[in-house]
Every structure is written in structure tokens, then in C-alpha cells.
């Protein structure tokens, strides 16, 4: 499945400042088709910020991010990068699915309506087809019987699974998971991780910010350790967990494992 022509995601030297705070100090990362990369590291290390830069929810101050060889959020003009138009950024985002820590389901819409919202109103898909596809997706995350239920009546785990279905409905080339299980009660983490693992094994390209080392070990193709705005180590999970190269990684792992 792995395609070597061009990576789905290529980030080079991404820098991001909040005021005088340097949050990302040159992050470079590549993700090939079908690959799952888990981004781990202490809080405040810039993982979430980097993820948000990938679909341009945050502007970047330097470097470049490409998805399927298309520059994200910027346009090249006379050798310089200028921010792209809102419409064109919106179009780029249809290719990038995102799952949030706090789900962010639309509370005024049922599970099914949440899933068909973007296909119908962004892609202009006929409603009938969108509903059929949404039902399939809800089936896939095990929530077909909840199609007409409003988010308020769903458990956290169910809400997050609907959120995953909602992102998948756009048939994205890349899925971003921003600590998708961190806001969940312990007994609900499993059901969400199961869905994510299945997705990874089905060949979805995924960038996953997580604290779930079990998931990283089982589902990731590669694990990257981030600290202080930089990726300090990156390896296959077996190597990464068995013999981390960096002292900082060893300290981090010893604290959370």
C-alpha cells in the first residue's frame, strides 16, 4: 500500500511563535500513504499546535506544510509565501480530517446530521447519497442505531466515534487526531482506540497526538517524540519503546509507562 511517489504529508522546518514564545522551532515530518504516526511528548511541547498548523487552524511563521504535494494555507508569490484566500484554504481542509480532544460535535444536529453536514453543504453531495454513506460510516464506528440521537444523549466515547465518522465522511487523504481520548472516562477510551486502530489497519494515513502508549505500540508505523518545539526522536514503535536513543525520551517514557 505504501506509495513512494510523494508523501501525503510533508512538513519542513515549521516554526510557530505565540508572541515571544517559540512553540515550534522547526518541525519536519513526512507521512507516506497508509502510514500512522503517533506524536508523543510532554504537554506544552507543541504537539497539538503542530497538528493545528497542518490544517491551518494556526498560521505558521516559517517553513512549509504540504499535503499531497499541495502547499497548505499559503501561496507562493515571487518566491515569498503569502496567506491563501479563505475559500482556497477551506478547499484544502476538505482533504484533511480532524478529530478534536473535546469532540466538537454540532449539538443542534443529530448524529446522522452531524455526519452529512459537510458532504451536503461543502461538497454539494445529494442528500440521499450522503445519508447512505453516513449510515455506512456510523455502522463502521458501531453507532448505526444512534443515527437520530442528539450529541447530548450520547456518551463521550460515542460522541467521539460520531466525530470520527463525521471527519471520514469527507473521504480525507489524511486524518489528524488531537488527543482524541484525553477527555474521555477511562472505560470509554477503549472503544475509541479500537475504531482508530481499525482505521489505521485499513490503510488510512493518520497523524495521532496521543498519550496512549498502548495504541502507539500496537497501531503506529512510527512514533515521534516531541519536546520543546522539536521532534527529538523518531522510530518504529518496537525500537522506540524498547531502546529509545535519547535520554529525554527515556525519562518521558519512564514517567508514563
Amino acid at each position, binding site marked *: 500500500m505504501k506509495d513512494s511517489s510523494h508523501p501525503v504529508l510533508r512538513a519542513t522546518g515549521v516554526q510557530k511563535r505565540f508572541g515571544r514564545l517559540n512553540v515550534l522551532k522547526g518541525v519536519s515530518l513526512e507521512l507516506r500513504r497508509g502510514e500512522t504516526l503517533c506524536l508523543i511528548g510532554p504537554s506544552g511541547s507543541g504537539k497539538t499546535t503542530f497538528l493545528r498548523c497542518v490544517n491551518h*487552524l494556526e498560521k505558521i511563521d516559517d517553513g512549509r506544510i504540504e499535503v499531497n504535494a499541495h502547499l497548505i494555507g499559503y501561496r507562493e508569490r515571487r518566491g515569498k509565501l503569502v496567506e491563501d484566500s479563505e*475559500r482556497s484554504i477551506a478547499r484544502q*481542509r476538505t482533504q484533511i480530517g*480532524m478529530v478534536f480532544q*473535546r469532540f466538537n*460535535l454540532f449539538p443542534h444536529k443529530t448524529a446522522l446530521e452531524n455526519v452529512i453536514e459537510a458532504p451536503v453543504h461543502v461538497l454539494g453531495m445529494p442528500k440521499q447519497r450522503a445519508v447512505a454513506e453516513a449510515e455506512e460510516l456510523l455502522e463502521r464506528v458501531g453507532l448505526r442505531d444512534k443515527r437520530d440521537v442528539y450529541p447530548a444523549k450520547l456518551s463521550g466515547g460515542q460522541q467521539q466515534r460520531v466525530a470520527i465518522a463525521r471527519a471520514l465522511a469527507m473521504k480525507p487523504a489524511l486524518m489528524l487526531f488531537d488527543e482524541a481520548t484525553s477527555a474521555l472516562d477511562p472505560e470509554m477510551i477503549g472503544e475509541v482506540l479500537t475504531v482508530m486502530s481499525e482505521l489505521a489497519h485499513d490503510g488510512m494515513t493518520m497523524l495521532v497526538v496521543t498519550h496512549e502508549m498502548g495504541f502507539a505500540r500496537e497501531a503506529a508505523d512510527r512514533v515521534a517524540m516531541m519536546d520543546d518545539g522539536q521532534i527529538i526522536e523518531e522510530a518504529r514503535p518496537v525500537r522506540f519503546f524498547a531502546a529509545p536513543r535519547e535520554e529525554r525520551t527515556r525519562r518521558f517514557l519512564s514517567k508514563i509507562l
Partner: protein
Amino acid sequence: MIATVALHVVWQRIAHPDHAFALALWRTVYISVAAQVIGVCLGLIAALMRRSRLRILRLISGAYVLVFRGTPVIVQIFFVYFGANLLFGFTLIPNTVPLGLFALSGAAFAGIVALGINEGAYMREIIRAGIDAIDKGQMEAAKSLGMTSRLAMRRIVLPQAARVIVPPLGNEFNNMLKTSSLIFFIGVTELFGDAEIRNSTAFQPVEYFTAVAFWYLVLTTVWSVIQAQIERALAPEEQGDGVSFRERVFQAWAPVAAWRTGGSR
């Protein structure tokens, strides 16, 4: 004894409304509704302008609130009715406004415009607060799905904000029903005007103003019932899973229907 209240006059005004009264009541209702609709539209436009990237639009929005919330409505009403045509040099407020089946007097039109513009300044603040009350994650989720901020505002944020906006909007309309009495001073015979005209010939202020107060109370009470219905209709997720408002009404009536058809439950 301070004075004798001619209760039969009060009763007459309440129980046996005449044609002139009915017309005055109708004027109060349509002027208030029209002004409120204008107010909501202007408020929405101004609230969105406040969020614009263009500084000039934000400034206009701010100045609008500053001026129209900071000056008396009665001044604004007089300004529009007597001053607008002179100020602009063309007929903004005509003598009559033909509206198909019936014609609106220039004064009533000016009243609607002035009350509507004034209301818009208050509505901007209410709508702004409603939009601000919606979690930022909603806009981000919508954007991450490829929506432009305009589409996200229309499909995701505003429908949710509407629910926050409706209770204060209800208060505003309640106010509007009463504030509309001010346009009597530019010669529109609405509910209060009708009472004052009667009083000026009969000189029975206690009777006539008691009766008109009662009618205002009727209007605001009817409105509060309607408002409660709107609020419930706008909060579907609190009504149980996927049950529409109509289905809930049917369910509420089910025992009665069963009894009428002789069914047993």
C-alpha cells in the same frame, strides 16, 4: 374617598372594544412586529460587521450602537419623522406608503423605521453575546470540515446562538410593544393614542388608562406564551431523541384521543 372609579367604563373598554380600538390595537401589533423584525435584521448585520476583518465596518457598527443606544428613542422618532426628509434632501418618509391591500401613513412608517433602527442597536449587543457564547471549537470543527467562516456562521454558529438570543429577544419585543406607544407623539393613533384621545374628551383618566394598561398586559402575556413555544421549538436536543415538536404535541394529546375514540390504555 379619593375618587369614584366608573367601573362600567373600564368594563366597556375591555369587554366591548369598538372599531377604532380594534384598529389601534392592530396598529400597535403590526408596528411593533415590523420594528422588531427590522431591529433583528439590523442587529444581525451590525453584529457580523463587528466581526469583520475590515476596520471601517467595525467602526460603523460601534458608532451605530453608541449613537442609537445613547440617545432617547423619542428624539430618534422625531428626528426621523420631521428631520429625515430635510436632512437627506429627498423623500425618505413619504406621506403614505401603499402596501397592496392597505396603505401605511407616513407617520406610522417613520415610527417603524425609527423604532427599528433603535432596536437594532440593542439587538446587535444581544446577537453579539449570543455568538460569543458559542464554544470556539464549533467554528474550528466546521472549518476543519472545509467550511468557510461564512458558511460555518450560517449553518453551525448562528443556529446555536439563536437559542441564546431568543430569551433576551423576547424581552426586547415585550419592551417594543410598550415603547411603540411613543409614536402617538408623531400622530399615530395606536393603543395608547386611542386611550388618550378618548380621555381628552371624556376626562376619565383612571378608567381609560386602566383599560389600556389591561390591553397592554394582554399583548405582553400572549407574547410570553408564544416566546415559550419558540424557545422550546429551538431546543430539539432537550426534548428526547429525534422527537419533533409536532410529535410531542400528539403524544401529549394521546390519552385524550384514546378516550374520545373509546380505546383503552
